[in-house]
């Protein structure tokens, strides 16, 4: 079971959060075309390793957080608020 350190609330059980997808993709602006939106919505790196992903602390402070998590070990290395940035370490 993941324990996700929410920057607002401290470490909380995974059961309080919901995963909301890869946080490295950004929504194309008003001028985005089908190809751009297609990539944003569907195409995934899906790394076997470190991934920056969206989690909402849904049953807590409701903040959307960016979480740097390893998809094999499940280790969480860093969590920042929505406007923060996280570097993906080399595999």
């Amino acid at each position, binding site marked *: 079971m993941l324990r996700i350190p929410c920057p607002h609330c401290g470490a909380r059980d995974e059961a309080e959060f919901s995963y909301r997808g890869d946080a490295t993709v950004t929504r194309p602006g008003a001028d985005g075309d089908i190809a751009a939106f*297609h990539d944003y919505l569907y195409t*995934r790196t899906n790394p076997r390793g470190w991934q920056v992903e969206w989690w909402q602390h849904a049953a807590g402070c409701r903040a959307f957080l960016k979480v740097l998590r390893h998809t094999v070990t499940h280790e969480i290395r860093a969590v920042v608020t929505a406007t923060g940035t996280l570097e993906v370490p080399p595999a």
Partner: protein
Amino acid sequence: MAGYSGFRILLEGLRGNSGWREAWRKPDPKPSYDVIIVGGGGHGLATAFYLAEVHGIRNVAVLERGLIGQGNTGRNTTIVRSNYLLPENNNFYEHSLKLWERLEQSLGYNVMMSQRGVLNLFHNDAQRNAAMRRGNSMRLNGIDAEILDREGVKAMCPLVDLDNGRYPVMGGLLQRRGGTARHDAVAWGFAHAADARGVDIIEHCEVTGMILEGGAIQGVRTTRGEIRAPKVGLAVAGHTSTLTAMAGFRVPIETHLLQAFVSEGLKPLIDCVVTFGAGHFYISQSDKGGLVFGGGLDGYPSYGQRGTLPEAEHVYAAGVSMIPALGRLRGLRSWAGVMDMTPDGSPYICRTPVRGLYMTAGWCYGGFKATPASGWCHAWTIAKDEPHSLNAAFTLDRFREGRMLDERGNGPHFWAQ
């Protein structure tokens, strides 16, 4: 090599079982093949089998990084059914079910396909109407389906609590021809039969890179050296993205975690497969007596093959809510698999942006039942370099086209499928 039969069992029993030989050979890889299949799960092995059996392409290698059948094929809850809504899906899965129905005889291996019935419970009008739409779609496509009322549910699975739960049961959609098969035997049976037709099954051989020339595949790099082939098929389930990354492109797949569980062995208790409509839960009983059960995804991407406690608790809670007699039984073991989730819940059997590279992937948590048809269609697509009509819709670029095959209307979220 002699096939398996009751007679041989008798004979070998008298000879101290000393005459049995390897169910499949353990060859070293050759420098090149006509076709390489990456992934020794059910889908990869079935692809190889049908390449040999249907298309006469026998110079084929199946490369498996570990042991065959130890991926999702060896860790799934073994439900086989064709009760799909969309015609593209129900035609495909019905083709699969028909292949299942004669798989033992095709393979000369008992995969213990058991058509015990798959019963999906519904609890309210909306669910009933959706079940009707699906069941009628099946019937119009020539697939068996029945709608059961509460008495029918009681008769089919007397242990289900019709009334006292949070959401009383209203009825169920039953596919009698659905059922279960013995997961490991499916891998072993396809391996045995493919091997007998000349396919090299090479275990402990991990693909680590792709040899590409001019936008076309020429072979793969592996932990056992380079192996060349003009055609390569991927059947690596949750690892698809890793392999396509080697080939230089990304796909609409996210790898998620799904748990399964088995109880202690019990005398026959639950005869069919039952799924709960009020929560994520489904259950059946294996021939060994264990109740095999599972629920929904754990909810986040993982290649870790290990599940999490809260999701397990949810599965158990849904279980006792559906069948209160389960409370006093015991869970024996839990495990998890890594699922190749797609944004619409439907699969890919198709060519890829790289010439000569094909894939069968995106099976989510429903690909065991697809095993024979996936192999059959994948083999067809590889052999002919074009899809069969059964898999024509299962393309990678259907999302560009807006032609999603979203059975349940869950939308473009991998984790919600």
